[in-house]
C-alpha cells in the first residue's frame, strides 16, 4: 500500500499542478498586436501534459508494481517532453523579464524536476518489491 501511494500520489499532485499552474498564477504572456505569443502554445501543451501525468498517477493506484514501474517511466518521459516544449519545441518569449520566462518556465521546471525525482524513487521501490516477489 505504501509503495502504491508513493508511486501514485506525487504524479497526481504534481500532474494537477502542471495542468493548473500555466492556466493560473504561472500563466503565459498576453496577446501582442492580436497575435498569440509562442508561450501561449507552450502553456496549452504543458496543461495537456499535466493532465496525462495526473491520469498516470490515478491509474497507478489500481495496478501491480511492474505496471507502476512502467507508468512512472511514462511520467518521466512526459516530463522530459514538458521541458522540451518551452525550451526547444515551441518556445517562450525571449525577453528576460517577461512573465512566461520569469514565472511560467521556472514553475514548470521545478514541478518537472519533482516529478522525475519522485518517479525515480517510486521506480526503485517498486523494482525492489518486484524482485522480492
Amino acid at each position, binding site marked *: 500500500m505504501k509503495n502504491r501511494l508513493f508511486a501514485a500520489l506525487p504524479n497526481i499532485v504534481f500532474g494537477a499542478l502542471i495542468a493548473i499552474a500555466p492556466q493560473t498564477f504561472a500563466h503565459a*504572456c498576453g496577446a*501582442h*498586436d492580436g*497575435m498569440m*505569443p*509562442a*508561450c501561449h502554445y507552450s502553456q496549452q501543451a504543458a496543461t495537456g501534459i499535466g493532465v496525462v501525468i495526473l491520469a498516470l498517477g490515478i491509474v497507478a493506484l489500481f495496478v501491480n508494481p511492474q505496471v507502476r514501474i512502467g507508468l512512472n517511466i511514462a511520467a518521466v518521459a512526459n516530463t522530459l517532453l514538458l521541458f522540451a516544449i518551452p525550451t526547444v519545441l515551441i518556445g517562450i*518569449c*525571449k*525577453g*528576460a*523579464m*517577461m512573465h512566461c*520566462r*520569469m*514565472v511560467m*518556465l*521556472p514553475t514548470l*521546471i*521545478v514541478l518537472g*524536476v*519533482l516529478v522525475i525525482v519522485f518517479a525515480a524513487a517510486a521506480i526503485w521501490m517498486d523494482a525492489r518489491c518486484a524482485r522480492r516477489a
Partner: protein
Amino acid sequence: MTDHATVYDSVQHSQRRILRTLAARNLVGRPMRTGALLAVVTILALAFFGGTMLTMNLNTGMASMERRLGADLMVVPQNTAQKAEALLTDGNPSTFYFTKDIADEVKKADGIDQASEQTYIASLAAECCAEKLQIIGYDPSTDFVIEPWVASQFDGTLEDGQMIAGANVNVSADGTVELYGHKWPVVAQLASTGTSLDNSVFINLDTVPQMVEASAKVAKRVMPAEYADKAVSTVLIKVSEGYGAETVAENIKRLDSRFSDLGYVYPGGVTATTKTALNALVAYLTVFVAAIWVMGVIVLLAVFAASVNERKREFASLRILGATRGMLAGILLRESALIGLIGGAFGVGLASLAIFPFSALIGKQLQLPYLQASVPTVLAIMAVTLVCSVAIGVAGSLAVLVRIGRPEAYLTLREGE
C-alpha cells in the same frame, strides 16, 4: 592451519563489512526516526543555503550597482529627479529631457572635474514579446560612467547607428535589435549587473536623432523633431577634489535663477538608501536563519537524546556480541553523518529549486539590485552547507555517544526484568 587462518580472515572481513553497512541498515530499519531526523536537517540546510544565497546575491548586486554609478551628481530636468533615481535602481524606462544649452551652462559651474551628457528614451516593446527598453544616448568622448564599464567588454568605437545591449536585451541571431521597425546592429552585449541597466541599450548621442525619426515613422514620436539633436536628459558630474556634490549643486543654482528648479540627484545618496534597505533585509534574513538553526539544533539534540533509551538494549546486545565501544561510536557517527549528508543534500536541492530558476522573479520582487553569485561561489556555499549539516548531525549524536559509553552491557540488557 592455513585453512583456519583463511576462515578467520573471511569472518573478520565479513564482520567489518556488516559493521560498515550497519549504520545504513539501522537508518532504513527505523524509517520514522530517520525521516524525522532527515526532515530537521533538511530544513536547517535549506534555511542556511537559501539565506546565504539570497544574502550573497543581494551583496553581489549592490557591489555591481556601486561600480556602475560613477557620478557624484546628476542634474536633470524639473520634476524628474524621482524618475532619474528609479533609472539608477530598478525603475521603468522613461523619457525626459531639457535642451543642450542648459547642459552647457550647467557645466560652467565651479567645482566640476568631469561632466558628460546622457539622453534617455523609453522604447516601445522592442518586438513581439519583449519588454520596453531604456535607450541611453551617451557621449563616448566625455563619458566617465558607462565607458569604463563598456571598455572591459568592448574595445572598439561605438559608431553612429550602432548599439551596445544590456544583459537582458533580446538580441536576435543576426546580431541586431529591432526598435521602432528598424534593425539596429549590436556591437557588444554587456554582462549582467543586476540593475535596470540590464534592460537598456546604449547608443552615441549622434544616433539619438535617428532613433527619434525612427519612432516617428512607426509610432508616436518620442520627442519633437526640433529637440532631437539638442535633447539632454541629464548632465552627469564628477566633482573636483575638495568639493562636495551638494556644494557643486549650489554653485549650479547660483549660475542662473532658473537652475533652482532643476532636479539634483546624488547617486551616492541613492546607493546609501538602497544599501540601508539591503542591510535591513540581510539582517532579517540572518536572524531568521539563526533562529531556525537554534530551534533545529534543539530538536536534533532532543531526538537523539530520546533515542538513547530506545537504543540502550540494541547497543548492549552489540557489546555482548563483541562490539567494542569504539565500534559502537563508529556506527553512531556513521549514522549521524549519513543523516547530515543526505538531509544536507535534500536541503540544498530544494533551496536550489526555489532560488536558481526564480532568480529573475526574486530580483524583481525585492526591488533591490540582485545578481546571481558566480558558480564557484555557489559551489563553495553548497559545500559549506553540506559540511555544516554533517557537523550538526555528528554533534547531535555526541550526547548519545557519551551516554552509551557508561553502563555495563549486561545490566542494561537486564533492565526492567
